[in-house]
């Protein structure tokens, strides 16, 4: 009986530990998104009219494209979800590759329902291959 109880306690502890670890990472990712992206692109990635594009177009959210935009910024005319935007997003060189990975994982999870996490390695590879 004691054995069963202690086993159950361990299982619960492990489950709780993993889930709280995951919750913390999700909280951190959300905080990074809110700090660097959410002011303009909105808490739900909805964008703001024609001023700021939504973050719901998969074509712009591939790590190879999005990591470069976060790091180097972007300007000129672009088409997002079939709508034209023209403006300037400033470069954010202070955002580290691990933070970019967390932000992109968050955006893809929350707004595209894409469970696969973006890794730091993928971000570093992307940043080495950004076009001018």
């Amino acid at each position, binding site marked *: 009986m004691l054995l069963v109880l202690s086993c159950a306690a361990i299982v619960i502890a492990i489950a709780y530990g993993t889930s709280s670890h995951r919750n913390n990472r999700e909280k951190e990712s959300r905080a990074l998104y809110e700090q660097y992206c959410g*002011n*303009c692109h*909105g808490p739900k990635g909805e964008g*703001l*009219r*024609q*001023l*700021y594009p939504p973050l719901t177009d998969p074509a712009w959210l591939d790590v190879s494209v999005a990591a470069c935009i976060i790091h180097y910024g972007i300007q000129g005319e672009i088409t997002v979800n079939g709508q034209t935007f023209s403006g*300037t997003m*400033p470069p954010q060189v202070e955002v580290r590759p691990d933070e970019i990975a967390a932000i992109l994982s968050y955006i893809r999870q929350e707004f595209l329902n894409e469970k696969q996490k973006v890794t730091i390695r993928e971000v570093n590879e992307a940043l080495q291959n950004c076009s001018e």
Partner: protein
Amino acid sequence: MKIRVPASSLLAFAILFACGAPPKNAGEKGEKNTPDRLPYLGNPTIVSKEVNGKLVADTIPQTIPSFRFVNQERQEISEKTFAGKIYVADFFFTTCPTICPVMSAQLLRVYEAFPAEKNLLLLSHTIDPEHDTIPVLREYAEKLGVTADRWHFVTGNRDSIYMLSEFYMVTAEEAPSEPGGFIHSGSLILIDKNRHIRGIYDGTNPKEVDRLIRDIPVLLREP
């Protein structure tokens, strides 16, 4: 004799009670929070005036002084533009990466809440007139989808804008070390027909903007 009640039903009752009661109270409280009359904010001035040949003290609430700017349609905007109307003012700049987009999104809610109200205007002052020229402000307003008959985006003499911001009780200053190069508070300020301050709201907090949207009809009803 004992009455046996399944624990689960007790729990269900407790949850029902706990969850059922508060929203109703909160709703009633929320309605009570909207006052019949809005306060006068800022620093009043005591002046003496003559009544029936006697000098008596009179209190004048803080008043927004006269001003003259140009809006996104190149129209001259002054206190006369707002004669007989109430308005919501804020201070921003178009390249602001921090709180301004949130303020614009929230002010857009106010704009959309009163589509047919001719006695309510919105007034956004740029604190970066060097960059935010008339065409830049015009493009910003167009992209936001708002028009100058209800929402003025104004620019003008830099010092006049900064000086005026103090009368609106908004801090605005250049800060090269900050993202975007300026710091300023994100307040939305509600001004009455006599240019007195009747409400100050945090323009980055949707709940505060809900309060502003509830307060506007109260001020509109004032004679």
